[in-house]
């Protein structure tokens, strides 16, 4: 009963604010190229979806994002492992990593479009570059955070370094790596969109920009809506995997034990403090 009432309140609040928005735009005669009414956004969304236009561009952006995510995470994980496991690699690479980390990777997008063209490649590389860092840093921190007692235990069993890595450090790093993947996914989407802004032949980012030129603001709002759902879906997908892989992690168990699967958006955005500590944001 309690849940039903709060759901009804949520719906009522949504409808109320939409009505207020609609009324304000009509009442104050706000020009549609400044702020479109929700009804105009809904119409634009319907037009874009039913004509297949949005889906075509969505597919392209999704492909860029996922390929960039794979590329960036694989590189980030690989290099993070190398840095965490070898003093030598750390000594030579770390200064560059720190330097590169302080650079807003987004600023490289124009250069990357010049080097790799207007096609898929430049967007994948841009997305990968932005997705790379969270994974690099989280992998490094995760691999190094193995509990001293556990390392002692492995050593007392005469385990080799390779065994300690495989049986202890790697599983121990997984909560960090999964938190990194979660951020990397959203970052990859940002990287792909920015890449499309700079120069592209297809994709939702390019669509937004061409709508901007024609002052189609309601169209832009509708694409933004699509993008936020894409972001939400991608993040949910990572979290689903994370929950499967990290069933043993205290922060995941807390999530599993929540009786209500229908977690409020704010809670899923805020995550929990333990997981938050593992997330190193850098872009």
């Amino acid at each position, binding site marked *: 009963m309690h849940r039903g009432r709060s759901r009804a309140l949520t719906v009522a609040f949504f409808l109320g604010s939409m009505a207020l928005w609609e009324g304000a735009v009509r009442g104050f005669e706000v020009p549609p190229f400044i702020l479109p009414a929700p009804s105009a956004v809904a119409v634009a969304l319907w037009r874009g979806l039913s004509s297949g236009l949005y889906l075509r561009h969505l597919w392209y952006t999704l492909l860029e994002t996922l390929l960039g995510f794979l590329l960036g995470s694989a590189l980030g994980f690989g290099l993070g492992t190398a840095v965490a496991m070898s003093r030598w690699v750390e000594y030579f690479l770390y200064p560059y990593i720190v330097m590169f980390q302080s650079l807003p990777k987004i600023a490289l997008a124009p250069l990357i479009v010049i080097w790799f063209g207007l096609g898929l490649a430049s967007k994948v590389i841009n997305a990968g570059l932005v997705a790379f860092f969270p994974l690099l840093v989280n992998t490094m921190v995760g691999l190094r955070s193995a509990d001293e007692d*556990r390392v002692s235990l492995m050593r007392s069993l005469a385990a080799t370094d390779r065994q300690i890595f495989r049986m202890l450090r790697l599983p121990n790093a997984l909560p960090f790596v999964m938190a990194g993947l979660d951020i990397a996914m959203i970052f990859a989407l940002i990287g792909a969109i920015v890449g499309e802004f700079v120069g592209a032949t297809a994709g939702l980012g390019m669509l937004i920009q061409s709508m901007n030129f024609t002052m189609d603001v309601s169209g832009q709002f509708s694409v933004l809506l699509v993008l936020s759902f894409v972001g939400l879906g991608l993040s949910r997908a990572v979290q689903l995997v994370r929950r499967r892989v990290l069933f043993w992690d205290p922060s995941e168990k807390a999530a599993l034990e929540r009786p209500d699967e229908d977690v409020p958006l704010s809670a899923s955005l805020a995550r929990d403090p333990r997981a938050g500590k593992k997330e190193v944001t850098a872009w």
Partner: protein
Amino acid sequence: MDAIAVRELSKRYATRDGSVAALEGISFGVGEGDFVAVVGPSGCGKTTLLKILAGLMPPSRGDARLRGTPINGPRRDIGVVFQAPVLFPWRTVLDNVLLPIDVQGLSRERHRAAALDLLALVGLEGFDRRYPWELSGGMQQRVALTRALVHDPAMLLMDEPFGALDAMTREQMNVELQRIWLERRKTIVFITHSIPEAVFLGDRVLVMSPRPGRILEDVRVELPHPRPLDVMNTPAFGEHVRAIRRRFAVAGRVDG
């Protein structure tokens, strides 16, 4: 031949202002199948001694031998139980117990039955598929004990294994450890800062001095096994505890 022979063992740590002696000229032997308790105040180098015996740390001087061969690195015929259970949360109870088998590259299939037997021995029958976080602290320490026994080591090293448990669980674990020892007859070196625990469990109690750790006394506990918890209320038990406590008072520090 002694199972463990320690001769003139010393350990110094380098610190910022010179080196600090943790152990000073320690010598003792442990017979095959003996239960030796080592008791001493905090910071007397008990854990250092155990780390040297486990091959986790080299001594500065002297040597320690297990069945005649020097301990100069981790060995596969030693089982160690730490103060914390140190279980891996991503492994089930059975998989945690089989960790030494995995590390040594032995056949899981062949040791599975032994692992399940040991789990039954420590009273964890039917818990093999649970995860560590589903168990209480005492149960987790039982899993750790099982893990230390699964590869059938010659010697068991225990570093205040029940120190983190509540008093009642601790007494119960002491009774069970004694039962397991009587059944399996492993050589056990058991480190504790509780004098009654040392007297209850040990055939012998090595009394250590505050830093630098030396052996003040090697007490033989003449109480027949198996010892029930009631033994703690007997005059003989009390006399042992009193004698050891007096030894500490003379050495200038009272603890436990």
